[in-house]
Every structure is written in structure tokens, then in C-alpha cells.
């Protein structure tokens, strides 16, 4: 029953494993050729299937994951250089350029905005909670 409805299960399993490999190893030097080898695909076939499923090539996806992790680190008040190198970029300038292109502001601006918001949150936390929920909690 499931097999009939799910004819490409082996393909999905391999592509999903490759995606999870990128998620879990984004900070390391990832050789995308090795990923396609491990997924038992030719490089071309692998990239085509990956893009069909995730809408990005493996390289584009790796970049997106790194930027997303950098956003989390900056949100946790880590300095820009630390965020850059922690997520696997080699150069702060290329990191900053990519970050700005994807997020819309530079990493340093993003960090400053996050710090400003956190300061505001600690000053007036209730201002960030819609009243209906605050009332349910008894936060008034």
C-alpha cells in the first residue's frame, strides 16, 4: 500500500540524508562531491534531485544554512567574526556580503538591532506579549 504510493522512497532517503549531512556538518569544510558519492549518485544527478526537492542546489543550501546559523549566533550576542568563522566561512568580507544579500542588512547592523531589541525586552517584557496571552498567564 505504502510502497505503491511512495515509489521513490530510496531516492528520498538518500537525498534527505545528504541534506541532514549538510545541516549537521555545515561548519566544516564540506566537499559536495563527496556527498554525491555517499548518496550513490553522479554529481549531476544528485544536484538535480536535490534542487528539485529543496529548491536550491546543495551549495546554495549550504550557504543558506550557514547564514541561518550565523543569524542565531548574532541573536545570541556573538561578535560578527565569531559568527562568521563558527559557521564555516573563511572570510569576514565574503560572509558580510552574503549576509547582507540574504538578510538585507549587514551582520554588524543585525547584531546591533538584536542587542537593542534585547535591551528593550528586558526593560519592558510585557510590551512584547499580546494582551490576550498576557492575561491568560496572569501577566499584568
Amino acid at each position: 500500500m505504502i510502497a505503491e504510493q511512495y515509489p521513490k522512497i530510496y531516492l528520498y532517503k538518500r537525498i534527505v540524508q545528504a541534506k541532514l549531512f549538510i545541516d549537521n556538518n555545515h561548519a566544516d569544510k564540506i566537499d559536495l562531491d563527496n556527498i554525491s558519492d555517499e548518496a550513490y549518485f553522479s554529481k549531476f544527478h544528485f544536484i538535480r534531485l536535490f534542487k528539485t526537492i529543496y529548491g536550491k542546489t546543495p551549495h546554495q543550501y549550504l550557504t543558506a544554512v550557514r547564514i541561518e546559523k550565523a543569524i542565531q549566533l548574532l541573536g545570541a550576542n556573538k561578535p560578527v567574526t565569531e559568527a562568521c568563522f563558527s559557521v564555516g566561512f573563511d572570510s569576514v568580507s565574503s560572509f558580510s556580503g552574503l549576509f547582507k544579500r540574504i538578510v538585507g542588512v549587514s551582520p554588524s547592523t543585525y547584531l546591533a538591532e538584536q542587542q537593542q531589541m534585547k535591551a528593550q525586552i528586558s526593560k519592558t517584557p510585557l510590551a512584547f506579549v499580546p494582551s490576550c496571552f498576557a492575561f491568560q498567564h496572569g501577566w499584568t
Partner: protein
Amino acid sequence: MTHVCVYVLNQECAFDFYTNKLGFKVKMDVPMGAGARWLTVTPPEQPELEITLFPVTIGQKFNVETVKSMTELIRKGTFGPGVFTCKDIYATYEELKSKGVEFMKPPTKEFYGTEALFKDDSGNWFSLAQLV
């Protein structure tokens, strides 16, 4: 709609489930004192929808009896808060399954698309769908 509420039994565990298993992003994480948190997450591709992970604890809304009843109802899967749609249900199903998400129904073709059913760590049921 911009905010919805999902009642959870343990906010810390729910935080782990929704971020690390489902891949949702934290939108607001505001300490409210005495260990309480205002915590919202958003689906990765729908940042405008904040899902409040609301712990079932004694407070203005819930007394001891209500907490007991709600806990029992959530745990036994009474509530189905919503439907999540995705671009490729087979890939999403494989990924979530490999992360330990419990599915009650594998991807199955329906008239409106392909649908699977999973539950969160508290017991809330959700549909995961790829629409036609």
C-alpha cells in the same frame, strides 16, 4: 492571523521539538520572571505566523483542575491544532521520521493532495500536507 496558540505540556521540551525536530525558528523568547517565558516560533517559510508554545500551568486561566484535565486531553491526542503544508511531503516525512517524529499516518494520497499525520511531543496532532 498572526498568532496562534498551541498548548504544550512542557515548554522546554516543546521548544526542542519545534526548533530541532520540525526546524521552526524562534521569533520571541521573552523571560517573564519566575521561570516563565513568552515563547513563539514560526514555520521556516512562514515567518509572519507566530505559534505560541503555551505551557499548561496553573495561572490566571488554568486552575489545578483545569491543568489536570487539559494535560490528560492533550496527552491522549484530543486536539488537532492545524495543518502544515510543505513543498515535498516525502522528503519532509523522511527527514522528520529520521529525527524521531512520531507519525500516525504515512504520506497518503487524498483528493486534495498528499497527507501524513504526526504528533508533537505533548500529544497534539497535526496534518502534514502537500497540496495539489
